[in-house]
């Protein structure tokens, strides 16, 4: 039972990550490879403030989200005139910088050893001591992120994003604030990624840098592409599919040392299959 709840927690965690990344990749046409970095910023911000400064769970989540907003705001500043491949390269570089910050700034982040002793989630003083309660917390957060992202994607703001992903010049010639909209959607996406990080920190009660590498960025991106970028449900379908696949691989009795590599190979094959069979993702006909 606990195992199933843990898998559910992972579903919700990755649903937050994919939904927030899809705001950039699917809805805005900004291919970002820095999502794991932002996820890590949130995880570490929560870990640091809750272990060093004894800040409550809700406070630490809020600070983590603020950190996510700040970092993605900085990422989005050079987005003017940096479209397509260049944005991808820029975010790839930032992903590297963020990882090495987490891995190398020993005094603040504990370096490769990470930070342990992060308190479990507690809402208004009541600690969530059963896994079922924690699962509910993750589900609520994923629900809120999903609802807000859907609101944005189906609003006039979302329409400007959709126009922008195809033709920036035309969108500008209609008087739209293309730069402001880009910065805002990056900030929103970063806030949600950092929320996922903070939840993760408090759930596992320990963080180390290995969960926030470029490989993790690519995994989240793969989930989005698999499910169908720019669709409302696609990113969630993608998250459920790849989390399930990873868990399924545990049961076929492969030694742990080989399982990780096998997982990468299976992800790769699944993506190649999708590109051929359903080039616009599982969620789209």
């Amino acid at each position: 039972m606990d195992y199933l709840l843990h898998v559910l927690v992972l579903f919700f965690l990755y649903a937050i990550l994919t939904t927030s990344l899809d705001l950039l990749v699917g809805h805005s046409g900004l291919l970002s490879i820095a999502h794991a970095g932002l996820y890590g910023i949130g995880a570490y911000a929560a870990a640091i403030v809750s272990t060093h400064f004894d800040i409550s769970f809700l406070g630490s989540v809020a600070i983590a989200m603020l950190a996510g907003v700040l970092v993605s705001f900085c990422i989005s500043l050079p987005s003017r005139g940096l479209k397509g491949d260049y944005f991808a390269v820029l975010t790839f570089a930032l992903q590297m910088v963020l990882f090495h910050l987490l891995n190398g700034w020993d005094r603040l982040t504990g370096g490769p050893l990470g930070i342990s002793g992060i308190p479990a989630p507690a809402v208004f003083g009541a600690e969530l001591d059963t896994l079922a309660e924690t699962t509910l917390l993750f589900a609520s957060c994923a629900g809120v992120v999903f609802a807000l992202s859907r609101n944005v994607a189906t609003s006039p703001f979302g329409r400007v994003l959709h126009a922008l992903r195809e033709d920036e010049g035309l969108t500008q010639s209609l008087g739209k604030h293309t730069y402001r909209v880009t910065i805002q959607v990056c900030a929103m996406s970063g806030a949600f990624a950092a929320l996922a990080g903070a939840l993760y920190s408090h759930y596992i009660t320990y963080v180390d840098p290995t969960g926030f590498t470029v490989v993790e960025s690519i995994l989240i991106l793969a989930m989005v592409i698999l499910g169908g970028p720019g669709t409302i449900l696609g990113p969630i379908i993608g998250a459920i599919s790849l989390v399930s696949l990873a868990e399924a691989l545990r049961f076929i009795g492969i030694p742990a040392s080989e399982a990780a590599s096998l997982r990468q190979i299976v992800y790769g094959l699944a993506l190649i299959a999708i590109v051929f069979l359903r080039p616009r993702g599982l969620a789209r006909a």
Partner: protein
Amino acid sequence: MPKTPTLQCDGLFKQFGDVRALADVSVRLSRPGIVAIIGPNGAGKTTLLNAFSGFVQADRGVCRLEGLELSGHSVAEVARLGIARTFQEVRVIDRLSAIENVMLARPGQRGESLLLALASLGWRTEERVNHAVAERALESVGLGQESNRLALELSYGQRKLLSLAVVQATEARVLLLDEPIAGIHPERRVSILNLLRRLRDDGKLLVLVEHDMPAVREVADTVILMDEGRVVAEGEPSDILQRRELVEAYLD
């Protein structure tokens, strides 16, 4: 004191490499009116539209909208000041439906604010109004039946008509139209010419770049003939298009 022209430029120069696209162009245009810019390929007609709409910054000279200098303003700022344009290569947003393309163009939408979008608040009524306006704009160009089709599913001519519906919806006072008639189905032609007249009668200034001389003769109040980046002649269409030396030199 003479009236300030709606749109004007003075001493405009623009060089692309070895090509002199604009060489000392000065024009003064007032609304309401339909002005057709004609001339051979490479005369600088589209570059002039690009200079007015902020897509090209002139090397020298200034453009003004109702006396306000436009140089230094971004494309979006120029649009918000009241200049809308279409493109020769016909640009619409392929993966939005026809009606979404038109609704996108509506100015000053509250729902484009992130906070109101997040809260899904305060923009539904406005959206319904914009939907109704967009439907009327689509009907005015004969696309009433296509409103829910994606722009990429429309034919070339229909996309051109859609871009006309889009600029109408911006409520701009000045519309710069790059070849609005060429390539339009003959059956639609009359209604599009009527639409252009109606927009003028609503008080707008329409500046067309057009190769379809019969259409220019029918609809334009003023014709500006350009060649090699210069204004060669300016006047009423009946005058310019009657002058054999001009027609033979530039338009055949």
